[in-house]
C-alpha cells in the first residue's frame, strides 16, 4: 500500500480539527479539536518515520505526546478556573476586554 495514504488521512484529520477549533464554542470541545490536530501531526511523523526508514519520527511523536499532555493539563486547569469564576465554559463568554 502507498504510505502517502496515511499522509492524506493525516491532512484530512488536521483540517477537521482546525475547523472544529474555529466553529465550536465550548472550550472543552475546542481543546479536543486541538488534540485531534496534534494526533494528525503524530500520524504524519510515524508515516515519515516509516518512509525514511529510521525511528527519529517516532521519537518526535513521543515528544509531541508529552507536550500534548502538558497542554491538556494546563488548558483544562484554566478552563476549570474560568468556569469557577464565570460559571461558563463557552469561549464567547470570556470577552471582558471587548466591553
Amino acid at each position, binding site marked *: 500500500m502507498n504510505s502517502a495514504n496515511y499522509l492524506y488521512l493525516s491532512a484530512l484529520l488536521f483540517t477537521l480539527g482546525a475547523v472544529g477549533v474555529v466553529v465550536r464554542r465550548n472550550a472543552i470541545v475546542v481543546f479536543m479539536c486541538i488534540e*485531534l490536530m496534534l494526533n494528525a501531526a503524530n500520524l504524519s511523523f510515524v508515516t515519515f518515520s516509516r518512509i525514511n526508514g529510521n525511528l527519529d519520527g517516532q521519537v518526535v511523536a513521543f515528544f509531541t505526546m508529552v507536550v500534548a499532555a502538558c497542554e491538556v493539563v494546563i488548558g483544562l486547569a484554566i478552563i476549570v478556573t474560568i468556569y469557577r469564576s464565570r460559571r461558563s465554559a*463557552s469561549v464567547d463568554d470570556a470577552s471582558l476586554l471587548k466591553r
Partner: protein
Amino acid sequence: MIQLAINTGVTQTPEAILFWILAPLAVAAALGMLLVKKAVHSALLLAFVMVTLAIFYIAQGAVFLGIVQVVVYTGAVMMLFLFILMLVGVDSSDSLTETISGLRPIAITAAFGFGGLMMSLLGRATLGREAIGLDAANANGNVASLAQLLFSKYVWPFEIVSALLITAALGAMVLAHHQREIPRPTQRDLSIARFRSGSLATAAGLPGPGVFARHNAVDVPALLPDGSPASASISETLRARGDMKDSSIYQLDQINTAVEEEK
C-alpha cells in the same frame, strides 16, 4: 513483492484493507465530533479516532507508540477530558448558533482551501526514491531501538520535555488550588439564613423527590397538593439537563384501585 505493492499502490495487502476500513471510520468520527451537540459525545468520538490512530501506528511498525497512544491518549488524556466535562457540568452543552456572523461559511471555505492545498501538495510531492520501511530500524526490536535513540541522540530534548512536564504539573496544581475568600457557611448560618429569608416555605428544607410509594426515583418531582409537579424537589443539575420525568401519571386518582384477581 511487498515493496512492489507498496510502490505501485496496489490495494491488496492486509494493511491496505485495514486502512480502507478504518480510515473512513476515523474521518467520519472526526466529522461527527464537529457536528454533535453534546461535548460528551464529542469526547467519545475523539477516543474512537485515537484508538484508530493507535491501530495505524501498530500497522506501520510503531508498536510501542501505538500502545502508548492507547494508554496515554485514550486512557489518561480522554479520562481527564471526561473528568473535567463532568466537573464543569454536562448540562453546559454547546450552542451551535454562531455568535460571530458569517464565521461558519468562512471557516468551511478556509478549511476547503487549506485541505485542498495540503492534498494537492501531497499529490504532487515525490520523495525521489522508494519508501524504505522500518524492518532494518526495528531489527533489535522497536522498544530497544527507540530507547537507544531516546537516550543518545535525543537525550537533551528528553530532559527539556521532562522539565516541561514537571512545570505543567506544578502549574496545574497552582491553578486548581482554590482559596475561599469568604468562610464556608456552617449549618447554623444556613439555618439562620433560611428563617430570615422572609418565607417560611423553605424554612423546613426542600421537599424530597418521588410520588407517594409509587415512584421514588430522584428524577421524579414530588406532586404539590394541586397536582402540579414541585420542581424544587429534584436536583438543579437534573432540571438543567432536562432529565425530569413527568410525575402526573403517578397521582393518586390515576391509580387503578381495582383489585386484580390472583390465582
